[in-house]
């Protein structure tokens, strides 16, 4: 489907001008205005058997909220969404919709699914602006819950339990709560005031946020229990970057995406020296990887003033796990995508600073267990890409800095926490969810995990404590 053809049927959101996009970190997709939202909502067939809802990992009542939009009852629409999704202003922007709700939408058969994500965002933004999202909390019953990590999983648990009258404290290692939403996903996709407003809503409902606490070091899990917390939720994210073990990986100018994005997004290196944290602004930047992290890094590099930004990805372009919209936007912004290329080594100068990347071209072969064709390198196809900065975005793995302090919690082979269907870990009174349990590593999955954990924590309290 061409963009233009799609545009004749689907409502297209307004975008920031290209000139502004490549210069600033302002949000690119400006969302629907009311007229567009109404037109898009009107296209929905209100299917009795809502495939869209089954496609959403959180099972948002999609036809129901769209119907409320049609009736102009935005308050009701947001109410419906929030039953299953606590952070719609976030998910409406970052969900992998083409793989989830919109993929399942019946109209996707003709390749023009309803723009569910943008409709969700439309009502969520109104709600945030009008301050509708006040949490209605039951009277406090004194049950004390600690949440470790303030990413979408932790925020969801905190919100759901504070509503049920719990005394909830969220412990966060960084100086600012929000997890990947504040230190990873750049503001041109997710403006930071959206996350701040969500956190303020929770604070107003009584959730306490304690930053600068790395649980396991600053406070141990047993100290938390001793301090009277009766249930603990672990939502620490996966957290650790995977580092390719190839030559030149430790040259100056070779970044992990985590480092590059923490510097740029959380520490605001793009405002250096107004903010003290520096980041290289390479003229020629090469990014290794094909997920959201890779594409976010590429687009951030463009905005930091790079002249040439190239993404090398080992599989085909269609297999890139990044959101499709962002790949399109990245290309508009001048990012080059080189599919079917694997990195071999980084080459440096006499100061040990990167100067180029040697790569090899791949061909696609048999289908592997992920259902995608396996790339295999073509002998003799080596070539160089000039680069004075490289960013590795080949994925995350479980960070064991915390889990190794609590051997009672069982981990799988890769270091992810094992939970049962009730989100319980192998340690009594400890639940877990989000990226650290090793699911699909999406925001909505983390929210879904948080919902389930909150439900089960509450059940346990009902049964044994009060």
């Amino acid at each position, binding site marked *: 489907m061409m963009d233009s053809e799609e545009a004749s049927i689907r409502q297209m959101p307004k975008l920031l001008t290209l000139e502004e996009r490549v210069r600033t970190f302002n949000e690119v997709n400006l969302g629907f205005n009311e007229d567009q939202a109404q037109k898009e909502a009107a296209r929905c067939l209100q299917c009795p058997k809502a495939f869209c809802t089954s496609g959403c990992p959180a099972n948002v009542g999609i036809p129901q909220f769209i119907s409320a939009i049609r009736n102009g009852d935005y308050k009701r629409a947001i109410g419906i969404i929030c039953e299953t999704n606590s952070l719609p202003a976030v998910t409406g922007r970052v969900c992998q919709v083409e793989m989830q709700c919109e993929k399942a939408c019946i109209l996707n058969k003709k390749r023009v699914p309803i723009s569910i994500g943008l409709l969700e965002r439309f009502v969520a933004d109104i709600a945030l602006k009008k301050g509708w999202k006040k949490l209605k909390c039951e009277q406090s019953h004194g049950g004390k819950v600690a949440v470790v990590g303030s990413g979408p999983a932790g925020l969801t648990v905190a919100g759901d339990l504070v509503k049920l009258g719990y005394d909830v404290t969220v412990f966060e*290692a*960084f*100086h600012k709560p929000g997890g990947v939403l504040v230190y990873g996903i750049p503001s041109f996709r997710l403006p930071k005031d959206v996350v701040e407003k969500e956190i303020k809503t929770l604070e107003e409902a009584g959730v306490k946020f304690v*930053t*600068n*606490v*790395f649980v396991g*070091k*600053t*406070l*141990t899990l047993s100290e938390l229990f001793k301090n009277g917390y009766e249930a603990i939720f672990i939502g620490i*994210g996966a*957290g*650790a*970057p995977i*580092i390719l*073990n190839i030559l030149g*990986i*430790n*040259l*100056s*100018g070779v*970044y*992990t995406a*985590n*480092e590059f994005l*923490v*510097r740029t997004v959380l*520490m*605001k290196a793009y405002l*250096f*020296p*107004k*903010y*003290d*944290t*520096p980041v*290289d602004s390479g003229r020629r930047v090469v990014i290794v990887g094909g997920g959201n992290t890779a594409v976010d890094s590429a687009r951030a590099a463009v905005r930091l003033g790079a002249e040439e930004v190239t993404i090398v990805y080992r599989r085909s372009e269609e297999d890139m796990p990044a959101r499709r919209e962002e790949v399109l936007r990245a290309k508009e912004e001048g990012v080059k995508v080189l599919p079917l290329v694997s990195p071999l080594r980084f080459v440096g100068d006499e*100061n*040990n600073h990167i100067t180029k990347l040697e790569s090899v071209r791949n061909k696609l072969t048999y289908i592997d267990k992920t259902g995608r064709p396996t790339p295999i390198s073509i002998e003799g196809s080596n070539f160089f890409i000039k680069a004075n900065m490289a960013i590795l975005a080949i994925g995350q793995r479980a*960070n*064991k*800095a915390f889990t190794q302090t609590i051997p009672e919690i069982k981990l799988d082979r890769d270091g992810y926490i094992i939970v049962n269907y009730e989100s319980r870990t192998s340690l009594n009174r400890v639940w877990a969810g989000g990226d650290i349990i090793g699911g699909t590593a999406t925001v909505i999955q983390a929210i879904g995990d948080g919902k389930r954990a909150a439900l089960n924590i509450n059940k346990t309290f009902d049964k044994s404590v009060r």
Partner: protein
Amino acid sequence: MYTILDKVQLAEGIFKVRIDAPLVAKNWKPGQFVVLMVNEAGERIPLTIVDGNSNDCTISLVFQVVGRTTMLLASKNAGDKIFSILGPLGRPSEVKKYGDVVVVGGGVGVAEIFPQARALKSLGNYVIGVVGARTYSRLVLVEELKSICDEIHVCTDDGSYGYRGFVSDLLKRLLEKKDTIGYVYAVGPVQMMKAVSEVTRDRGIRTFVSANPIMIDGTGMCGVCRVIVGGEIKFACIDGPDFDAHLLDFDTLESRLKTYTQRESEVYQKFKGCEYDG
């Protein structure tokens, strides 16, 4: 917010601050560090916890002014607040009964060996201090260290105090005379730690150093602090900062430390003088 309770200048460009940080003070062990931000727009920098007191809930840090953030910190005084302090981070040092041990400190590193010296002493080791600085006016805490160590040897690069030369030379002379040393722990500039490790390598003396790469989060999520130890990539903030000196690749550590030298120094020059006098 974390309040500075007192601040003293120990030497030219070197300061000690005592800060109210109850949780850090409570769980702190020798070898661990904090990551702090002086203010909200600040950089996150790692500093070793030189002392921690769980009774009065404070930690002590000793730092040398080398750039923008340490300069900003030096401009703060008792009563001022620090925006954020995360810790204690890193693995505690391994302290055991070895018999005779040497703690080696260069420059501001003299302060950083304090916790080890104390812990090694309390386990009944015979603790020898070998410390030095560029020049006398940069030498810190020698008297204090004397009260912990059984023996102390001092040097300066320019001979303005004690033996003239580097701590590694002094250590070498010591080891030539004394063959009972079972353990050496060194903290200081990369080149100094490297030289120390060369001195002890042939003699097969177990030697640990505190690696000081650039850090951001200090929790293992960004990877900037990666070092090569025995051919493997390790993250200094969670696998270290202490590493076996005979396995650590000092050259890579040194070259990665220089990543931002140019940009940092531009800012340093720009802000120098306007916020810091000392």
